[in-house]
C-alpha cells in the first residue's frame, strides 16, 4: 500500500512505485504481491512511505535505491527490513507494526476510515468498504425528512470552522419554497499549513460524493457543485475520475439506481483567492462574478447561488454524512463532547516530531495531540504555543495545553477550530513575527470591500513591522488592540471579523514579548533580524575558517588559526555562520537587546595560540 498523497508524491512516490513494480517483476513475485496506490496515509513527516499488508509493516523515508534490497529481503526472503522502519527519536529500536506506532494509536478514523486501504482511483475499492450502502439504505427505507432528522440528532456541525449545525442548515434549505435548489462542497482550502480537505479528496473522493448525494436527496436538490482550488491538481484529478466512475455506475445522473431520484455533480475550479473560502464569495465565484462577499443574512440556505436556496458544506462535513447514515446518529453522538460531536481532522505541522494528518475524537486535549500523537518537539526544545484555525485563529500558550479540543473551548481560548490547521511553535518562535506573518497573509488576501478589513489590516501590519524592526513605540500595543477590535466589529465577512485574532491572542498571552521588542529592543526568541546580532566568542573560536568561507556577504574577518571577527556593518544576519560552526566548538552566538552590550569583542583577528598563552598566565 504505497502512499500517493501530494506530500509523498513530491517526495518521489511515483518513482518508488516504478522501481517497486520492476523489482517485484524481476523477482517473479508479481502474482503474490500487488502494489496498490492509496491516498494520504497521514504520517507525512515520514514520507515517502508504504505499508505492507497483511503483515502491517510500516516503512518510511524511502528512496528508490532502497527498493531492490527491500523487495529481496522482505518479499522474497520474508525478513522485514529494520533500517527502513519507523524509530521514535528517543528510542533505538524500530517499531515494525503500523498499529503500534504512537502516531496512529490514539487516532480515531471516521472520515478517513478508508485512507491507506483503498485505491482512490478505483470505485470498486470504495464499494467493497461498504461504500454507497448509505445511499442504498436511504433510497430504500428513509424519507428525506428522516435523513435530515438523523443528521440533526447526530450533532454534526460544520467542519469548515464556524460549527453551524448541519441538520439545521439542511432543514432551512429544504423548507424554502423557491426552486431549484443547489448544494456545494467547499474545498477552497487556503490556510497556510492546512491540507485536510485535499487529503480527503486524494484518499477517498467517493465518501464526499456519497455524502453529497445523500444531502441532495434529503434537501431536494438535483444539482451540486464541488468548488476546489486549481492549486490542488492531484485532488481535482482524483475527484474528477471518481465523479465519472460514479456516473458510469448510475450513482450520479438521472434515475439513480433505478429510482426516480436524479442528481448531477460538477467541479468548479477557483484560482486560489483566500476569500473564496467565504461562502458568499464562493457563490459569486461560481456565478462568474468577482469573489467579493456580501452581507448576511439572508444566508445562502435561503438566498444562495443564482438567488436560489443553497447549502454549502465543507469537504469534511460531507464526508461524515455516509458514516452517520450507516452507523446511526446514536453511534456518532457518543463520540466527542457535549457540544461537539464526532471526530476532527487536523494537519499537524510546525515544530513537531511527527508531522502529518490526524483524525482525533473531539474533546482530546492539545497535550495528547502534541505529545502522544505528535511525539513532542524536536531537539528537546520547549513547547511555546500552538496556532489553530489558520489566519483566522489564534495562538494557545503552554498554560492552556490541557484544553479539550472542541468548538467552544477553542473559541474561549481566543482561537477557533477553523478548518483544522494546527501549527506547533517552540521557544525559537517569535510571537510578534508570527502575528505579522498572518496579518501579511490576510492583508494580501483581503478583497478590499470593507474599509476596516482593507485599511485596518494595513495599519496592523505597519505597526507590527515597526515593532519587529525595533521601531516600536509606547502606545503601539493599545493601538493594535483598539484597531483589532474595531476590525472585528465593523467588517462584513469571516475574513475581516477574524483577521485580528492572531494579533489579539498573542497580545493576550505573550504581551511581555511585545513589550520586550518595544522597550528593550529585544527579541526574546532571537528571530527579528533588526534586533539581533551574531558574535564569535574569542575564547572558543579555533580559527578553522569554516564560517569565513561560507559567509555569503563576506562579513567575517580572520585567517587560519586566528580568532575570527564578524563585521557588524556587513552582516546580513542570515545565520549561516551559526549553522556551519562545528557543534563541539560552538563559538558563534546570537544575542538580542541588553545582552548585546555585554559582549566585549576583539578589535583585530589574532592567533589562537596567543589566547592559549594568556589563559596559562
Amino acid at each position, binding site marked *: 500500500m504505497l502512499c500517493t498523497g501530494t506530500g509523498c508524491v513530491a517526495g518521489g512516490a511515483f518513482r518508488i512505485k516504478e522501481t517497486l513494480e520492476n523489482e517485484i517483476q524481476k523477482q517473479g513475485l508479481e502474482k503474490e504481491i500487488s502494489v496498490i496506490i492509496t491516498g494520504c496515509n497521514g504520517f507525512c513527516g515520514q514520507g515517502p512511505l508504504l505499508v505492507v499488508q497483511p503483515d502491517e509493516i510500516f516503512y518510511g523515508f524511502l528512496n528508490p535505491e532502497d527498493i531492490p534490497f527491500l523487495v529481496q529481503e522482505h518479499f522474497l526472503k520474508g525478513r522485514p527490513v529494520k533500517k527502513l522502519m519507523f524509530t521514535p527519536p528517543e528510542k533505538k529500536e524500530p517499531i515494525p507494526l503500523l498499529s503500534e506506532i504512537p502516531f496512529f494509536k490514539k487516532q480515531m478514523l471516521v472520515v478517513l476510515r478508508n485512507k491507506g486501504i483503498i485505491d482512490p482511483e478505483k470505485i470498486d475499492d470504495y464499494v*467493497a468498504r461498504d461504500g454507497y450502502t448509505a445511499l442504498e439504505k436511504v433510497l430504500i427505507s428513509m424519507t428525506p425528512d428522516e435523513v435530515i432528522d438523523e443528521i440533526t440528532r447526530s450533532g454534526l456541525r460544520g467542519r469548515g470552522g464556524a460549527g453551524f449545525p448541519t441538520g439545521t442548515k439542511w432543514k432551512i434549505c429544504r423548507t424554502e419554497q423557491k426552486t431549484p435548489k443547489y448544494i456545494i462542497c467547499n474545498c477552497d482550502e487556503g490556510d497556510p499549513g492546512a491540507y485536510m480537505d485535499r487529503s480527503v479528496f486524494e484518499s477517498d473522493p467517493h465518501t464526499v460524493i456519497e455524502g453529497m448525494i445523500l444531502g441532495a436527496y434529503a434537501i431536494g436538490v438535483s444539482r451540486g457543485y464541488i468548488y476546489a482550488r486549481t492549486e490542488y491538481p492531484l485532488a481535482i484529478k482524483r475527484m474528477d475520475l471518481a465523479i465519472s466512475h460514479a456516473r458510469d*455506475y448510475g450513482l450520479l445522473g438521472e434515475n439513480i439506481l433505478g429510482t426516480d431520484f436524479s442528481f448531477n455533480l460538477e467541479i468548479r475550479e477557483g484560482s486560489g483567492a483566500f476569500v473564496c473560502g467565504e461562502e458568499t464569495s464562493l457563490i459569486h465565484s461560481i456565478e462568474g462574478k468577482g469573489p467579493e462577499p456580501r452581507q448576511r443574512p439572508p444566508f445562502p440556505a435561503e438566498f444562495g447561488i443564482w438567488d436560489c436556496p443553497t447549502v454549502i458544506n465543507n469537504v469534511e462535513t460531507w464526508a461524515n454524512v455516509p458514516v452517520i447514515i450507516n452507523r446511526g446518529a446514536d453511534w456518532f453522538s457518543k463520540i466527542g463532547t457535549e457540544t461537539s460531536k464526532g471526530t476532527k481532522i487536523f494537519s499537524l505541522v510546525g515544530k513537531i516530531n511527527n508531522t502529518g494528518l490526524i483524525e482525533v475524537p473531539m474533546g482530546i486535549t492539545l497535550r495528547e495531540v502534541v505529545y502522544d500523537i505528535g511525539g513532542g518537539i524536536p531537539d528537546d526544545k520547549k513547547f511555546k504555543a500552538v496556532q489553530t484555525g489558520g489566519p483566522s485563529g489564534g495562538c494557545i500558550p503552554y498554560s492552556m495545553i490541557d484544553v479539550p479540543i472542541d468548538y467552544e473551548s477553542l473559541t474561549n481560548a481566543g482561537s477557533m477550530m477553523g478548518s483544522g490547521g494546527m501549527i506547533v511553535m517552540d521557544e525559537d518562535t517569535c510571537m510578534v513575527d508570527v502575528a505579522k506573518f498572518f496579518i501579511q497573509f490576510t492583508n494580501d488576501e483581503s478583497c478590499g470591500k470593507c474599509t476596516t478589513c482593507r485599511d485596518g489590516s494595513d495599519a496592523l501590519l505597519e505597526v507590527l513591522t515597526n515593532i519587529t524592526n525595533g521601531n516600536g513605540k509606547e502606545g503601539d500595543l493599545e493601538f493594535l488592540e483598539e484597531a483589532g477590535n474595531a476590525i472585528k466589529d465593523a467588517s462584513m465577512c469571516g475574513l475581516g471579523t477574524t483577521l485580528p485574532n492572531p494579533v489579539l491572542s498573542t497580545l493576550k498571552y505573550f504581551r511581555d514579548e511585545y513589550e520586550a521588542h518595544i522597550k528593550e529592543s529585544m527579541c526574546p526568541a532571537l528571530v527579528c533580524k533588526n534586533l539581533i546580532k551574531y558574535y564569535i566568542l574569542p575564547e572558543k573560536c579555533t580559527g578553522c575558517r569554516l564560517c569565513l568561507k561560507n559567509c555569503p556577504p563576506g562579513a567575517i574577518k580572520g585567517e587560519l588559526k586566528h580568532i575570527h571577527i564578524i563585521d557588524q556593518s556587513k552582516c546580513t544576519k542570515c545565520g549561516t555562520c551559526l549553522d556551519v560552526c562545528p557543534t563541539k566548538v560552538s563559538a558563534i552566538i546570537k544575542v538580542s537587546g541588553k545582552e548585546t552590550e555585554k559582549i566585549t569583542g576583539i578589535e583585530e583577528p589574532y592567533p589562537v595560540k596567543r589566547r592559549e598563552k594568556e589563559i596559562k598566565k
Partner: protein
Amino acid sequence: MAQLTLDELRKKRKEAQKEIYLREGKYKSKIIVHMGTCGIAAGAREIVSAFLGEIEILPEKDVMLTTSGCAGLCSMEPMATVELLNLPSVKYGHLTPDKVRRVFKEHILGGNIVTEYAIGIGSEKGG
C-alpha cells in the same frame, strides 16, 4: 457501462470485498511460511504458491498468508506455521504442495490438525 440497479450494486460489492479483506488485516487464520535461506533452498517458494492457489479459490478471503525467517529447525524445512484465531499455533515440517493442500483442507478449513505432518503445537517461550 450501463447504469446499475440496487441489486447489481450489491453484487459488485460482494465481488470487490473478496479482494480487499487482505488489506484490512482482517483474517480468521494465518499461515506463516518460513523462508530463511534453508527454507528457500528446500522449496519454500512452491509451498507459498500452493497455499496461494488454495486461498485463491476460497469464496471469502479471510486467510492470511505471510512469510518469516528461519524457524530454527532447518532440517525439517520447508516448514509452515498455521494459526487459527484464538488457538495455539501448529508447526508443520517437510511440506510438499500435496501436503499443503491437505493441511489447508483439513486444518485451516476443517479445524482438525493433520497430526501426521505436524511437528509441534504452540511456540517457544518469548524471552
